[in-house]
C-alpha cells in the first residue's frame, strides 16, 4: 500500500523526466546531424571513467540509457564491481568538467526518479 | 500495389522512400568495406532499422495498415540479432 502511494506520488516527477528525456534526445540528434553534415570535423573523442553513486540494477540501466541518448556521450561498459561506468565522448575539452556535468545533471535526475 | 500521388502524405512517403534507399546504399557500402567485424555489426543494425523505416513509409503510401505489425517483429528480431552477434564476437576472443 505504501509502495502504491509512493508510485502515485512519483508520477509528476516521471512526467518532468520524460520531457527532459525527449528534449535531450532532440538536442543530441541536432548535434549529431550538425557534426556529420558540416565538412570539417574538429572532434576530440575519448573514453573516460566515471564513478557512479547509483547502485541498483534499474538505476544503472537508466543511467546507461540516459548517457547514450544525451548529446555527445555513449556508454561503453560498466565495471564488474559496478562502481565505475566507462563513457565514450565526442568532445573532451576538459575531462573533469564533463564528469562533473554527467554526475550533477543525469545522475541526480535518476536518483530523484527512483528514490 | 495501387496508389496515387496526390495528397501531401503520399508525396512525403515517396520522398522518404528515396531518402531511405540512398541511406541503404550508403550503409551497404560500409557493410562491404568495414575494416573490422564490429563495423559490420553496426552497419547490419542500421540496415534493419532502415528497412523498418521503409515499411513505415510503405504503410503511409498505400494505407495498408496490416503491414505495421511487421515493424514490431522487426524491432524485436533486430535487437536479438545484434546482441547475439556481439556476444558471439566477444566469446570468440577467449
Amino acid at each position: 500500500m505504501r509502495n502504491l502511494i509512493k508510485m502515485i506520488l512519483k508520477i509528476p516527477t516521471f512526467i518532468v523526466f520524460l520531457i527532459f528525456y525527449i528534449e535531450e534526445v532532440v538536442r543530441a540528434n541536432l548535434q549529431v546531424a550538425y557534426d556529420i553534415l558540416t565538412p570539417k570535423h574538429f572532434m576530440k573523442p575519448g573514453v573516460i571513467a566515471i564513478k557512479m553513486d547509483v547502485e541498483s540494477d534499474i538505476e544503472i540501466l537508466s543511467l546507461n540509457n540516459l548517457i547514450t541518448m544525451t548529446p555527445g556521450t555513449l556508454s561503453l561498459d560498466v565495471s564488474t564491481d559496478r562502481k565505475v561506468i566507462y563513457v565514450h565522448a565526442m568532445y573532451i575539452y576538459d575531462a573533469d568538467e564533463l564528469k562533473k556535468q554527467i554526475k550533477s545533471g543525469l545522475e541526480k535526475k535518476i536518483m530523484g526518479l527512483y528514490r | 500495389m495501387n496508389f496515387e500521388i496526390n495528397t501531401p502524405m503520399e508525396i512525403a512517403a515517396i520522398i522518404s522512400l528515396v531518402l531511405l534507399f540512398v541511406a541503404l546504399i550508403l550503409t551497404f557500402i560500409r557493410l562491404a568495406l568495414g575494416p573490422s567485424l564490429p563495423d559490420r555489426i553496426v552497419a547490419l543494425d542500421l540496415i534493419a532499422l532502415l528497412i523498418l523505416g521503409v515499411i513505415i513509409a510503405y504503410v503511409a503510401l498505400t494505407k495498408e495498415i496490416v503491414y505495421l505489425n511487421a515493424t514490431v517483429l522487426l524491432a524485436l528480431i533486430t535487437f536479438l540479432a545484434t546482441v547475439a552477434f556481439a556476444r558471439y564476437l566477444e566469446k570468440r576472443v577467449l
Partner: protein
Amino acid sequence: MIILEWIASIFLVTGAFFMLVAALGVIKLPDVFTRMHAATKASSFGTGLMLVGTIAYFREPFIFLESLLVIVFIFLTAPVASHMIGRAAYLLKVPLWQGTVVDQLHGKYNLHTHELLSDSPPADSQNIAKDLKD
C-alpha cells in the same frame, strides 16, 4: 484535418532525413565508436519520428498503441545493443581513431576472464596473467 496530414508528412520526411544522416555518419566518421554515436542516436530518433508521423496520420487507437510500443521498445534496446557492440569492439582491440585524446579504459580489461576493473590493475597482475598463460 488537412493540417494534421501536413504535420504527419513533415514528421515522416524529417525521420527519413535523420536516418539518412545516420547512414552518412556511418560512412564518414573515422572509427567504430564514433560511428556508433551516429548509428544509435540518429537511427532510433528517425524511426521514432516516422512512427509519430503514422500516429498523427491514421489517428486510430490500435495504430497508436502499436506504434508507441515500437517506439518505447526501440528507445529501450538501442543503448543496450550499442553497449554490447562497444564492449565487443574494445575486447577485439579495434583501433581507436588517432585523434583520440584520452583512453581511460586502456588496460582495465582482464583478457582471460573478461572482467572489467574499476581502477588501475595492481602491479603484480601482469605476472598473474603470465602464469595463467603458461
